[in-house]
């Protein structure tokens, strides 16, 4: 019966992919890619269960972290166009916060 859950997750991944390709703004795409990553984490966990190899959970754990970093990188980069500016309080002005 977990196979049904895996199929549901794959279907939702395909739908998210459609939004990632279609999305008119960049933020729609960021949202879709982030959600796609979360669903991939779930799919990897389910696949690990189904094949009886719980080692796959390490990869799922890894991707849960990497997904977050990639999303933050894209958002920060689109807004500030630089990696140098810290996300400090009180708006940012290009100097250390």
């Amino acid at each position: 019966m977990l196979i049904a859950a895996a199929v549901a997750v794959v279907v939702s991944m395909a739908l998210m992919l459609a939004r990632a390709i279609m999305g008119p703004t960049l933020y729609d795409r960021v949202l879709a890619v982030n959600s796609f990553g979360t669903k991939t984490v779930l799919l990897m966990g389910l696949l690990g269960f189904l094949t009886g190899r719980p080692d796959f959970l390490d990869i799922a754990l890894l991707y849960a972290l990497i997904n977050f970093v990639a999303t933050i990188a894209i958002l920060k980069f689109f807004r500030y166009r630089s990696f140098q500016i810290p996300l400090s309080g009180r708006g940012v002005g290009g100097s250390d916060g």
Partner: protein
Amino acid sequence: MNFVSSIVLVDIALLAMLGVVAVAIIRLKSLFAIVMLSGVYSLVSATWFVAMDAVDVAFTEAAVGAGISTALMLGAMLLTARRVKTPDKAGARRWGPFLAVFATGGLLIFASTDLPAFGDPNSPANSYVGKDYIERTPSEVGPPNIVTAVLASYRGFDTFGETVVIFAAGVAVALLIGFGERALAFSGQRSVTPEPVSPDDHHMVLRVVSKLLIPLIALYAFYVQFHGDYGPGGGFQAGVIFAVAVILNALIFGLSETMDAVPAGAARAGAAFGVLLYGGVGVVNLLNGGAFLDYDYLFETPAPGSYDPHHWGQHFGILLVELGVLATVASTMIVIFYAFAGRAPEIRDEDW
């Protein structure tokens, strides 16, 4: 429906998604979207590798392709453009590249019909050396993860070559783009337009969550490093994950603070140290009378005919070379990131 056919269905679905993403990457014009979709491509590839039971490969693909590549491509976009440049020649006149692509693709598809079935025990890859490795790892090398045994011990030369290649890539990027500090000095002259100061703290949630996550990611990198003997993992993946922790720090707290925490000079020294450690292990084996990177000779020259059931030489040899790989990979990724991120943006505001 039994389980095997449902895995085939999942494979087909994943490969179809790969095809769709590839077509979308070709057709889209915004480079941001392309960078994100190439991250998705690597991610779907990693899931497909997981479905095909290749766990170490999936680990590396997820860490490198979906994580580091996205951040580095964004850094490269700093120095180039935001949209795809439309080609000068019309499509009908580019028949040369089309022919080349179709010919190569056709040849590959024709050759793939000759491949052995998935998991065939009589295929050449599983028959000669592969079977030997699987049979002899418990008695000769020791760790339960045969992939690590092959990577670090049986094929230690190849892994040494890979480590040196990664080091050379870091050196090449540093020579081309410059080290972080010099680029950072340049950037003071042309900085991004500062946004108006607002009294709210927009980013508190991000800062707090990142303060929780960055040490956990670094800790997970060390877990992957030391667990590589027993499960999927090893030096390459651990190095990449550690670099991701440093990149997250730079994203949230700024590049200059991160350069205070992990200096660029330390990163360069770390890359060289990793290669030195790996080569040094090999040289120690030579000095003790064995071949280069033959770990049985790591501590002392073994008496002929003796058998060490603990494989201490192999155990510590693999540990040390994996540490070398971790140092080189993490430091090289950090060097490359500093080189890209330290540059001032070349694009004017109107072009953005």
